[in-house]
């Protein structure tokens, strides 16, 4: 009997293959978006972790300093003086090659003799003796064979590279090994530590010292820590990697939330389609129940079908997710690279856990979506299944109850948002709950609006005018869900557009204010380099002597230790004009006097937020003389990163830390100066690795970076929107195709296909209108919550809300146009269907 039962039910599905396809597509796309984000994020962060692990081998700790680097003598002191074995000194940095194609390599200088203990992934067998050639022959490197071949190089060939100290020639003496880590070595060069020190101009300095703890680790750690100067730390490697990873937590969470939004839309799509498939077969189910099929059998049939769709959709979704992940990976890696830390070129890695996650998501979402329609089919007695009017009146009672439930969800969601402090996950959960609530409310809102419109049109003599309104209202079981889905999509679009627009406007204004100088000179370079400070000062003096220059400001971007973490610090030389470049959110009195002459700092908003700091708090920073307290005298806006940083005057900085030169110099031109000439004259004074840009150019670059970071959001938004529009289309088309017989009647009594097309368009247009109207306030609420809750909690940024009427209008029109477009296919179909055939349609 089961076989016949399934056949009876599935025959309907075979007759409506496109509905089947849409249902599967909804699951596929929803799962694909979530999987692709997860995959790309995990792959990008995993690559970072793997690279760190591959290069550090068995090293479990790392000795690091702030940006000034480690003194080489410390290494000797630890090895010889303290007897600490298994230490590996490392110098690393980036070199640029233009051989054949432009490439940037990470160049790592190590001690080849010591690396045996560390068993780093790059390690060669000593039999070849090539490790020693790294020491004996200067400027020799190991490189990946694949990379070399792409550069048309062989062992023994040389190629030019550029660093801060100029151009150098490197010689390939061997390949990096073909092992599991070979993919990480695509942009890696290994050389001797002396070569690296010369290339970067950091003679006598080290970037880090890696430590392998073999015997009695606790004692060794103690010995090392006691020997370290105050501004040098011993950190567990996994802790460092983990803290870096945590930096991206908010970013990851927000991306994941976007993915979940896609899944939510997918869920509505599945619910839409499955409930249609159930409603459309209600006569079949009613007939089956009438002849003795139990409600459990019907329910099981529906759930089994849904599971089958879920499995097909999930498998396709995972496959599509991998493909999408490939496209997202460069975007996500690029953003992490730009905003957080360098992520070397990542490769997509699909793990069994991710496949499991995808399967669970796809199946769980489908089952959740199918619960209500399955329950309806289970609950209703056969005669009510057979009577369409009973179904609709039952649905009308249901949507009234759903409206109350919706209010509860919205209230709960709002409570979650307002009462969960700084918790990002709770904030996002609250927003999702509210969104879900608004979706639940939509059918009732639609019903009420149509009733009001019907009353308004009651005075019209025309029956045709009332017909579309009646159609929407009479079949609220279908139209309500389609309108809800469309509303969610458009609300999400409006909300995200308003949010991104507000963010863009805030950042734009901030960038313009924080660039008070006319020109900016960028002094990139390795701060550990011995010549850098003197060279930077010399350059500053030359710039000050230029006729057109009225005054200068400078900044040094470095890192200092606060407790066991490195914190970014901007060290400023401020003049009167550059004071205007700060947007203070909170400030004490007489801040500039305190800034220049007292132990004080400004902190950025994100920094204050993430560390729970307020005006007047003290920050303890490690110096060579021990920890020093710096009072927070102002909190200012900064959108250049979400971790935030401190700002300190150069006077204060030089009291405790070495002069590392400058990262940038701001040039304030005299009134009436020719900026083009001035820029040219400044350029003449600069080295090849230094650059000068106008504040306009920097503004444009900054906004480009902003757009780049939001490209992921935009891409995902379009994907999510596609899913949802697909669902809405299918729902609206299904509604119309279901009325084939009704349309046949209208054609039989004399309605032309043109008139019928108008009727269909007006009906779907009405649904679009309701969705659009409701989406506007919901979109506003979403934008507001994203700006003032999610972004604040995630990144510590306070943004201004900028209302853009164009966005709202666009969203509203999107709803209307999508709905009207959904009428095109049914209208075309009816135009080509003979009325007689339409009348025969069941």
């Amino acid at each position, binding site marked *: 009997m089961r076989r016949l039962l399934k056949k009876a039910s599935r025959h309907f599905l075979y007759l409506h293959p496109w509905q089947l396809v849409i249902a599967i597509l909804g699951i596929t796309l929803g799962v694909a978006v979530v999987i692709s984000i997860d995959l790309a994020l995990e792959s990008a962060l995993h690559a970072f972790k793997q690279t760190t692990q591959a290069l550090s081998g068995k090293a479990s700790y790392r000795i690091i300093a702030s940006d000034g680097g480690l003194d080489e003598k410390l290494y000797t002191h630890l090895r010889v003086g303290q007897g600490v074995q298994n230490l590996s000194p490392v110098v690393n940095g980036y070199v640029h090659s233009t051989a054949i194609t432009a490439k940037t390599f990470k160049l790592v200088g190590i001690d080849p003799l010591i690396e045996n203990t560390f068993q780093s992934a790059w390690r060669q067998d000593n039999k070849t003796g090539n490790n020693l050639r790294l020491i004996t022959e200067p400027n020799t490197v190991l490189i990946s064979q694949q990379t070399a071949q792409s550069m048309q190089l062989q062992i023994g060939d040389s190629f030019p590279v550029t660093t801060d100290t100029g151009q150098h020639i490197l010689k390939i003496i061997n390949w990096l090994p073909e092992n599991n880590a070979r993919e990480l070595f695509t942009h890696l060069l290994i050389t001797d530590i002396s070569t690296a020190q010369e290339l970067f101009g950091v003679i006598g300095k080290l970037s880090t010292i890696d430590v392998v703890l073999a015997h009695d680790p606790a004692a060794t750690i103690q010995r090392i820590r006691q020997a370290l100067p105050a501004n040098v730390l011993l950190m567990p490697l996994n802790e460092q990697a983990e803290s870096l990873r945590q930096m991206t937590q908010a970013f990851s969470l927000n991306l994941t939330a976007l993915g979940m939004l896609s899944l939510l839309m997918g869920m509505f799509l599945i619910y839409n389609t499955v409930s249609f498939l159930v409603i459309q077969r209600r006569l079949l189910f009613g007939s089956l129940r009438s002849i003795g099929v139990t409600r459990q059998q019907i329910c099981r049939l529906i759930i089994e079908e849904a599971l089958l769709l879920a499995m097909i959709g999930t498998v396709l979704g995972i496959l599509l997710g991998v493909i999408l992940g490939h496209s997202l990976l460069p975007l996500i890696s690029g953003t992490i690279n730009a905003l957080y830390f360098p992520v070397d070129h990542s490769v997509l890695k699909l793990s069994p856990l991710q496949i499991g996650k995808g399967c669970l998501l796809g199946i769980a979402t489908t089952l959740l979506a199918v619960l209500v329609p399955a329950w309806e089919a289970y609950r209703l007695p056969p005669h009510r299944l057979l009577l369409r009017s009973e179904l609709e009146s039952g649905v009308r009672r249901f949507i009234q109850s759903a409206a109350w439930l919706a209010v509860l969800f919205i209230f709960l969601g709002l409570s979650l948002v307002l009462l969960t402090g700084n918790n990002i996950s709770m904030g996002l959960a609250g927003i999702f709950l509210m969104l879900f609530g608004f979706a639940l409310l939509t059918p009732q809102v639609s019903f009420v609006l149509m009733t009001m419109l019907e009353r308004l049109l009651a005075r019209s003599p025309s*029956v045709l005018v009332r017909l579309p309104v*009646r159609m929407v*209202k009479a079949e609220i079981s279908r139209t309500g869900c389609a309108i809800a889905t469309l509303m969610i999509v458009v609300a999400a679009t409006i909300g995200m557009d308003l949010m991104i627009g507000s963010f863009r406007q805030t950042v734009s204004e901030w960038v313009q204010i924080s660039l008070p100088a006319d020109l900016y000179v960028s002094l990139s370079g390795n701060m550990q380099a011995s010549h850098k400070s003197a060279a930077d000062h010399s350059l500053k003096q030359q710039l000050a002597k230029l006729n057109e220059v009225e005054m200068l400001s400078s900044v040094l971007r470095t890192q200092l230790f606060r407790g066991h973490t490195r914190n970014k610090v901007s060290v400023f030389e401020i003049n009167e004009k550059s004071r205007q470049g700060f947007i203070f959110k909170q400030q004490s009195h007489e801040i500039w006097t305190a800034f220049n002459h007292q132990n004080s700092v400004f902190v950025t908003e994100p920094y204050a937020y993430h560390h729970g700091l307020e005006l007047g708090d003290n920050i303890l920073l490690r110096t060579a003389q021990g920890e020093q307290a710096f009072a927070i005298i102002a909190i200012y806006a900064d959108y250049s990163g979400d971790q935030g940083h401190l700002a300190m005057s150069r006077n204060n900085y030089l009291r405790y830390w070495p002069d590392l030169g400058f990262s940038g110099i701001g040039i304030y031109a005299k009134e009436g100066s020719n900026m083009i000439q001035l820029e040219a004259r400044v350029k003449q004074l600069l080295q090849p690795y230094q650059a000068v840009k106008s504040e306009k150019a920097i503004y444009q670059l900054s906004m480009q970076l902003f757009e780049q970071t939001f490209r992921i959001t935009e891409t995902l938004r379009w994907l999510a929107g596609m899913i949802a529009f697909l669902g809405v289309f299918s729902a609206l088309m299904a509604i119309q195709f279901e009325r084939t017989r009704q349309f046949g009647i209208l*054609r*039989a*009594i004399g309605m*032309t296909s*043109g008139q019928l097309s108008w009727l269909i368009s007006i009906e779907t247009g009405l649904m679009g209108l309701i969705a659009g109207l409701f989406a506007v306030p919901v979109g506003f609420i979403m934008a507001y919550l994203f700006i003032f809750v999610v972004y604040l909690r995630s990144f510590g940024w306070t943004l201004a809300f900028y209302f853009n009427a164009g966005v709202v209008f666009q969203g509203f029109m999107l709803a209307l146009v999508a709905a009207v477009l959904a009428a095109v296919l049914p209208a075309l179909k009816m135009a080509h269907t*003979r*009325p007689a055939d339409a009348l025969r349609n069941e």
Partner: protein
Amino acid sequence: MIKKSAIEISQLCKYYLESGRQHVIFKDLSLSVMAGEFIVLLGRSGSGKSTLLNLISGLDPPSKGHIEVNDIHLCELTEQQRTIFRRHHIGFVFQAYNLIPTLTVAENVLLALELIHAISDYDRDQVVNLLTQLDLADCLDAYPDRLSGGEQQRVAIARALIHNPDIILADEPTGNLDIDTGKQVLALLENLVRKAGKTLIMATHSEEVTGKADRVFVIKNKALTWVTDKR
């Protein structure tokens, strides 16, 4: 007085393709119906009665042959033109009533008029009068799913007659009704049509109806055979 021919059918063929095979419904069918005649088409289910009515009304185009209704050559009309023709000249009563479920009884009947011209108070009065004649005065604002089968069919009859068409086509109008209700509906239909002097072609497999018809034909073996002629 020489009665004018309302419907002229000659050499009419209708077939359809299914699973690559051609199924012939009827072949070389010819028929001439005078204005005001009551014609009954008999035949088993699937014999092509409904198809013939669909062809006459322009709901379906023929595969071959000619159909002329009130001097209008249906085969020369486009689909749009056939629809407009049907709007003005044909009143169709279906077996399954085919009322619009989202319109009230009165609105279902008014719709047929609104497709021809803008509705006036006179039209409304006409609708009310007709529905009263059909004993539906209490159901004007009711929706079809609240009516019995007989009531729904009476609404369908009203819709078919309200715009004063020349030809009424009824496709097994009592097929879904019990015997007594069916008799009532048939009597009503015949009475209204005869009174107005309309041409009525009714497809049925009920032999009881044949006694009231002017001529009776049977569709059998893909052809139309004349059975009785009271003229």
